[in-house]
């Protein structure tokens, strides 16, 4: 019963952890993109796990309670924090994205409960995939309303 046996045991655990991390990362990774980036890549991203962020355009929110189908559009906002700060903060950036008709937009479809924070000029962070028509099918919908409270609502206040 000497040390080498311990190192084998420790090595096995370490190897198992490394394997679990590597394989789970490969399987569960989501590409975090802006609307512009996603539309630029187009067909290459169809079917991949994606997470995009954008400004919710209030006029486009539609909900069909019979099928629990929620559709809305988001407008392109930058994914770069420093850039958002330079433009005057997230609230300003979201507002400008919504009123600017030239911004790239993406249609989101989500089946489920309308999140409590879904409203005009909220920041939507959606996880899902795009189909060949460029429509985003969301599995998960996170919303942030930066103007409302200094203290961000914890992330879980999302629909899953």
């Amino acid at each position: 019963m000497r040390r080498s046996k311990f190192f084998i045991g420790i090595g096995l655990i370490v190897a198992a952890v490394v394997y679990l991390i590597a394989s789970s990362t490969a399987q569960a990774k989501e590409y975090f993109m802006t609307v512009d980036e996603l539309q630029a890549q187009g067909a290459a991203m169809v079917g991949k796990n994606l997470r995009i962020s954008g400004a919710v355009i209030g006029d486009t929110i539609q909900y069909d309670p019979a099928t629990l189908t929620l559709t809305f559009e988001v407008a392109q906002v930058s994914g770069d924090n420093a850039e958002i700060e330079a433009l005057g903060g997230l609230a300003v950036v979201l507002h400008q994205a919504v009123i600017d008709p030239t911004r790239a937009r993406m249609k989101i479809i989500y089946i489920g409960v309308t999140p409590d924070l879904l409203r005009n000029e909220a920041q939507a962070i959606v996880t899902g995939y795009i189909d060949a028509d460029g429509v985003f099918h969301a599995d998960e919908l996170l919303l942030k309303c930066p103007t409302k409270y200094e203290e961000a609502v914890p992330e879980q206040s999302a629909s899953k």
Partner: protein
Amino acid sequence: MLAQFGYGTLVLSFVVTLYAAGAAMLGVRNKSLAQIESARRAMLLTFPLVSLTALVLITLLVSNQFNVQFVYEVTSSSMPTYLKVTAWWGGQAGSLLFWSFLMSAFASAVTLHKWERDRELLPWVIVTACVTLAFFLGLNIFFENPFAQLYQTLDGEIGAYTFAPAGAQLFQPVDGRGLNPLLRHPGMIIHPPMLYLGFVSFVIPFAFAIAALVTGRTDDRWIRLTRRWTLWAWFFLSFGLVLGGRWAYDVLGWGGYWGWDPVEIAAFMPWLTGTAFLHSVMIQEKRGMLKQWNMVLIILTYCLVIFGTFLTRSGVLSSVHAFAQSAIGPAFFIFILATFSISIRLLIYRWADLRAEAEMTSMLSREALFLFNNLLFMGILVVCFWGVIFPLVSELFTGQKVTVGPPFYERANGPLFSALFFLMGVAPLSAWGHSTWQTLGRALWKPTLIATAITVFLYFTYTEKPAALLGFFLVALVLLVTVYEFWRGARARQQSHKESFFSALNHLTARNRRRYGGYIVHMSMVLMAIGILGIEIFQKETQGQLQLNQSLNIGGYTVTYAEIADFHYRDGHDVTRATVKVYRGDAYLGELAPRIDYYYTPSDIENTLQRMTIPGVRSTLADDLYILLVDWQPATATSATFKIYVNPLVNWLWIGCLVFLFGILIAAWPDKDAELVPARAKNKAYQSSAADD
């Protein structure tokens, strides 16, 4: 005026704290007991000073001084007083002050300890505690001043300033923004203070560890002195995590309790290292091994505590998740880097002195299994840490931001948690020092056999899913072994002391608090695991639009839509409440009332409506029926849409949480002879007879 006074006491606290740290260091250099005593008194003084600062802030909060920016941001005049008080930690500046308040309280408590035997540790404990305290006070002074007031400058701009700009007028908003209604839940009111209590308590063992490293007192004295601090820290941190989960389940309306988001993980990571530390210090106390490792763990825990506060408070992850921005990020980063590198330098300096006094002799010995337990906890930590930093890493190396979500954590951590459960079942049966397959097998075969029988039974009656069956096998094994340990101990005592079984059980636990408290914690893990297996593997959900008197069926329940009504409350929020009747088969079980609350905020805020979806829940030991009102037709009120979950066994999660806290209380409750029992360290023979496990 009051606000300036508060800022003044804040600055004074900061100066006194710096003085304490400086005087302690000088005292060591000059070998001056007087200087060290002066430092000790200064540290004692920080508590009343920070308390006074906090009192000023609370006064401002409850008296609606909305020209103070922080008061404006977290309260409104319609909030009840207790919520105004708890709004103290409802925003960033206040919660940092809350951190300092706890830190100064604990630092003072430590100075009251009898120091005679540990004189040389004192100055370094003061230095460590005061540097930490000074950092947090400094954040408040230089970056996040809770006493900053709103001023209108000559060109009409309104902004928050610590000192009035030239020519500016105080600006007095009519009302504050108010606390987010989602945060007005009892769980959410005490969740942050509990987490913070846990965070801050871990600073004390760290301070003693650093003191031990600096002075070269590398025995296990620092561990014995801080054993209870560690347990209480663990208690509060665990309680805080549990409350957060319960809050999510009650308020957030997605039928879950844990979402693996970075902020949750930030609080979970110090818990992981803290749990590993709790286990591995026993090896050092018993066998004089793993000394270096324990140092690594407590240093990691401290850094993760600071990192956790940083993640929840700084907005560093806002590139992904859009939290509030703040200037304190770089400050935190520098502080963590500095404390970590200094600690590690000290550890390397003492590395040789911390060599183990004994060698591991057997793979199956108790200490070896503890070591594997530690590795598994570290594995889970690495998984979590990787998940949190992966977006930053991937962006750095590929330019493409890639994130990982809950499936990553579940998939990677699942096997590690299972292995931990297996160890939880095996380790209590293994012997210290030397254990073989034969001795272990002899102890283990009965529980294994019974657990297998239970699993086979469940296979035929309940589920065929392999993951669930493996889970149930493991929890059965742990439960059997733990109950057996209680039974064996109590029987032995019953015979030797001629007591009744229950009195023997009672005395046994009272005499070996940490050991049996720990076993109770193990059993609570079993209960929680049952709840988690239930909701994760067997959760059912359905949703649909119902006309009045129509029904949805799920999991044996029939839910019939009966009524919907609107209510207006005097504090200005509206409630739409649906009433549904619940049947199981033909049996009528009662009504549930899922509802949506609407909170309106003052009109100077752009988004004036906050919705809260509050589920109607029928909770039994077998399952929870969890009903959400999703949508309805306001005009006719004849149709409404519901989402319904059946969460089997989830109540065992909450029951397990209560048992868990009870177990820690048993382990941490003060003994008469407290931790100062010098005889034990020498009396190893007596000790290893499991009297003080």
